[in-house]
């Protein structure tokens, strides 16, 4: 049985089911990260003293990662725009660049984490590092998850383009919405953890 409303919009909502689905999922993600941000505020407000992030964390590396993630958002939206213009080859280049930039982000985080562990700084060391590792760790899982979905649409999932290009374009758009959300979360994590 075919999945309904993947290309044509529902008359009552004016949207495809996939679009509603991804936005409802993102709404749940907002609450997930919201709970952790609320925990951060509670712990920080209740602490007798709180270190500035830049005294412990590597700001230049995090700034570089911010640029990488913003750039990956641009390549992601360009991948979708390429499909809208029926340029599959260009789509593959932009989607490949998005996956690569996600990989660069994770490699930089690996070096950041390694440096912390090398200096015996663990989540159990203090409340600041506990919330830092929790928030950035969860964010990294989201980057990895988004990369897996994007890799599927770059590789085996791209077969759909030949049989149903509109549906494939919508799928890439939904995958992009998740990727932009991951970028959006980092935009708030960066100043909150590293600069304040």
């Amino acid at each position, binding site marked *: 049985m075919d999945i309904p409303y993947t290309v044509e919009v529902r008359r009552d909502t004016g949207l495809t089911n996939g679009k509603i689905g991804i936005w409802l999922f993102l709404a749940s993600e907002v609450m997930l990260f919201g709970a952790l941000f609320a925990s951060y*505020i509670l712990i920080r*407000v209740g602490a007798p003293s709180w270190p500035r992030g830049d005294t412990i964390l590597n700001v230049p590396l995090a700034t570089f990662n911010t640029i990488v993630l913003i750039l990956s958002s641009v390549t992601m939206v360009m991948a979708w725009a390429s499909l809208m213009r029926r340029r599959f080859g260009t789509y593959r280049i932009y989607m490949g660049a998005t996956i690569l930039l996600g990989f660069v982000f994770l490699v930089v985080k690996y070096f950041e984490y390694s440096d912390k562990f090398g200096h015996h700084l663990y989540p159990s060391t203090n409340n600041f590092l506990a919330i830092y590792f929790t928030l950035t760790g969860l964010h990294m899982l989201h980057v990895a998850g988004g990369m897996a979905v994007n890799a599927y649409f770059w590789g085996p999932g791209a077969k759909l383009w030949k049989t149903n290009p509109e549906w494939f374009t919508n799928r890439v758009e939904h995958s992009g919405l998740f990727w*932009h*959300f991951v970028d*959006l979360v980092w935009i708030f994590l960066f100043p909150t953890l590293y600069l304040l």
Partner: protein
Amino acid sequence: MSSISNTASDHAAEIDRHVRIYITVFVALMVLTIVTVAISYLHLSVPVAVTVALLVATVKGSLVACYFMHLISEKKLIYAVLALTAAFFVALLALPIFTHSNGFWIPEPPSPNPTEVQSAPAASPHR
């Protein structure tokens, strides 16, 4: 956003317009990232630094949501879902403020009476 336009040339022109917007937003996000880092070197007081940093982050986040996520031209149902999410999100962030000992809802716990503290072990010696 995913609907296909009537004519190929109109459609291509529309996508080109979108691409120009994406590039402009990218430049704006880069500038705002530099601003975010530059502000941190000013060593402002914590309340001012938090306000400015979150203000810049909100502008950056809005640009991503409005243009990359196409929220600027979405359907009403998506706005309704996000409005509900925003309300719960604000309530969630407000909880720490209200539950803090100096907050509005939970009163400051009474300071322990030194006499009672001293007499407590005598009242329950086996505890």
